């Protein structure tokens, strides 16, 4: 086992992992940050998405021991506990949330996009969502919400 320190949502967390423990497992089982979902555990569905140094990453494909030098942001760290970001509010208002299981990953994918491209067009939004599966919504309302936040 390895003792590591992770920087998650702005605070330092001491964790004990083995070399193969993924960031997703540490987030969910040691830090009890269960907003990151285990949809496939092999990097396809995107439900476990987090930001690592501001860039979108799949926490099921990251080894926790490799993340010591990175600032990790999970869905729990996107906004203050009783607040929503503009994007989160727009997703709620647009009816973009159905079962909700993919939603944390979708939020992080879109926040990562808006951070580098504050005025994306529809193609850019769909491309940014390319690694996040949603089986309920058909993506329409999600895309609408992102465009509304970006363009008013």
């Amino acid at each position, binding site marked *: 086992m390895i003792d590591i320190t992770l920087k998650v949502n702005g605070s330092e967390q001491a964790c004990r992992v083995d070399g193969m423990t993924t960031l997703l497992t540490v987030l969910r089982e040691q830090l009890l940050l*269960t907003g990151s979902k285990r949809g496939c555990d092999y990097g396809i569905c995107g439900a476990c998405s987090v930001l690592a140094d501001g860039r979108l990453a799949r926490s099921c494909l990251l080894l926790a021991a490799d993340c010591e030098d990175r600032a990790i942001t999970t869905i729990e760290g996107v906004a203050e506990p009783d607040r929503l970001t503009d994007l989160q509010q727009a997703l709620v208002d647009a009816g973009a949330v159905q079962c909700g299981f993919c*939603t944390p990953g979708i939020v992080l994918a879109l926040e990562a996009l808006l951070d580098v491209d504050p005025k994306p067009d529809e193609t850019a939004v769909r491309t940014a969502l390319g690694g996040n599966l949603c089986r309920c919504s058909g993506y329409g309302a999600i895309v609408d919400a992102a465009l509304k936040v970006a363009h008013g």
Partner: protein
Amino acid sequence: MAEFETVGQSVPRLAGAEKVSGRVAYLDDIQRAGLLHGALLLSPHPHARIRRIDTTAARAAPGVRCVLTGADFPHRYGGFVRDEVVLAHERVRYAGEPVAAIAAATLEQARQAIALIEVDYEELDAVTDVDAALAPGAVRVHEDFERYGRRNIAPLPPNVCAHTLLSEGDADAAFAGCDVVIEGEFRTPAQVHAYLEPCSALAEVEAGGKITVWSACQSVFRVQATLSEVLGMPMSRIRAIATPVGGSFGGKSDVTVQPLAAMMALRTRRPVKLVLTRHEEFLMMRTRHPARIRIRTGAMRDGTLVARSVHLTLDGGAYTEDSPAVLGFALLMARGPYRIAHLRCEGLAVYTHRLRAAGFRGYGNPQVSFAGESQIDDIAARLGMDPVELRLKNCVVAGDTWVGGQRIEAAGLRECLMAVRDAAARRPTVEVRPGYRRGIGFSAVAHICGILSTSAIVRVLEDGSVTLNTGAVDLGEGAETVLAQICAETLKLPLDRINVAPADTDGSPYNWSTGGSRTTYMVGRAVAQATVDARDKLLTHAGQMLECSATDLELRSGGRVGLVGVPGMEVSFHAISQRAHWVAGGPVIAHAAVMFEGGGFDPKRTLLSGNGIGRLGAFIFGAQAFEVEIDEATGQAAVTRAWSAHDVGRAINPAGVNGQIIGGVVQGIGYALYEELVQEGGASTNPNLADYKVPGAMDVPRIVPIIVEHPEPSGPFGAKGVGEPPIIGVAPAIGNAIRALTGVRLCTLPFSPQRVLDALEPPA
């Protein structure tokens, strides 16, 4: 026009803020002190005899508290045929069937111990498709079939678990008089539900021996009833609670892993959580029924449809589950929404050594509609008619009857057809790139919403706000929000004064299931009735408080009752409920129980036709149009534009309706173009989300939902369902577009690049 305050408003879903923040606790997010974790061993063979299972090493492994095999589950279960087992006993019937389960202190320990189980299999010949299963002398999937308990006791041929025949008029004679008869054989694949949240359950035993099972499910009552069968315990000792469901689409309608978690909790007296991996999901859960559809449709020269015959063979997999109901429903819908006087629809559900097929959004209708709506276009082409005109000429209208004689009360089908035709006609013309072709295809959709019974309880709390309890599980479609809107509207209360209780067999009144596009329509009816009863009780109290007749009173916005025509003369729900709780009458509690009229099980009918339920529900209609582009070099087909119009009676929550439409259409695009769980020699070759393609955001265009409202007399505020219809007409409409572009009818789904290439350049 402010006809209603809440109904008709796209209010955000009740749990939206919690979901978008990642704070909703799905099953795998729940922790318990002393929690044990479950893991499974799955069969590698599609058919084998289990000679011996040696669990000695596994039992001795670190952390292991419980090892289960088939011998631990003596009771078979099943709603139609009692053929199902929780763990394979003596014989495995599909590759992926669970053979053993282990509960250990950690998930890693459970998985390590699974690897220590030794199973001695004697591999046997397998029948892995319906042709092999129906061949004379074929290996039987269930040698003891005749000894199982069955709802329908009519004798059946080997490897057939259901047979249904529906007939009206004289199809054979009518075909002889037709000017045009089109014949074809269509095949559809195994589509995987691919909900994002894997199946999971957590079970815990109370000191008194009562067991509580939390799970993502579509019906806590079905979970409770099936657990009672499996565990041999009375329902009074079993409590089922629904956790937030991360998608379902029919795949969580029967029990999934609840029996395993429950038995491990009973054995260990510790809470046990079992969560499937995505790999296990693909290997052991369920798919849409693969189907073979032989179909003939006959018409007169003027386009009048006269006769149709359908022979449907469904691959039900190794266990029956809902196959008889899917078969019966598919045949009931196989006529399509047309006035066809002569009809013969017959079908079989067949056992094979594959994972079980089950209910999946559309319940057999997408398969038969693929065939039927393809043939409508083929007839139009043969007659030189416009395919939408042909549909308009023959489509059913309100007052017509469905197969079996039930009257159609409301039908906006004509309006839906014209809406998608007009919308498609208005699309901007774009220059098609060299090497591509672009064209459009249409389909009509009919379905039924309703099915069996449900109930609701409305309780007025001490402050005049309300708790609504229906037992309905919200799968993500927004049922809780819609039901709260119906309750709020009936009482003229703001939505935040309605608390929707989660489904829990200990506190919720019975609800058959969230399925069959039924929650808005059926549960909504129960909610409306119960709420009207609560309102009348409030009015009675108010009459006594204001010393006037209750008939002179009116509801006023915000939870008040007032004397008609006298603005200041009123009492609040708060004051009324205080009186009810503390002075007179007792708390205001109202309930309603409903069954769709004439919709119960009829054993005689089941025996005669194989189709058990009489009237299933209210008819719902829609129409769809897809613009499709095909790449002549690669054969890749893509949807470039889409319109989907649905008569929902009344949209209680238009944004919710649109979400159902767009989501259903995208699942339909997956079914049409990509999705197939491929089986070779009894094993899946693509059991993962990398090789099994679920549509992503870049694969689908902007889809235009069109809401049509012809109020259904029996529906709450005129509403009816929309959950399933949007998936149903997608594949045929895309196929009709490809036919328009190539002149070739593709009869097999999905429309893979190879199949489209074959249409472009038919093999010599």
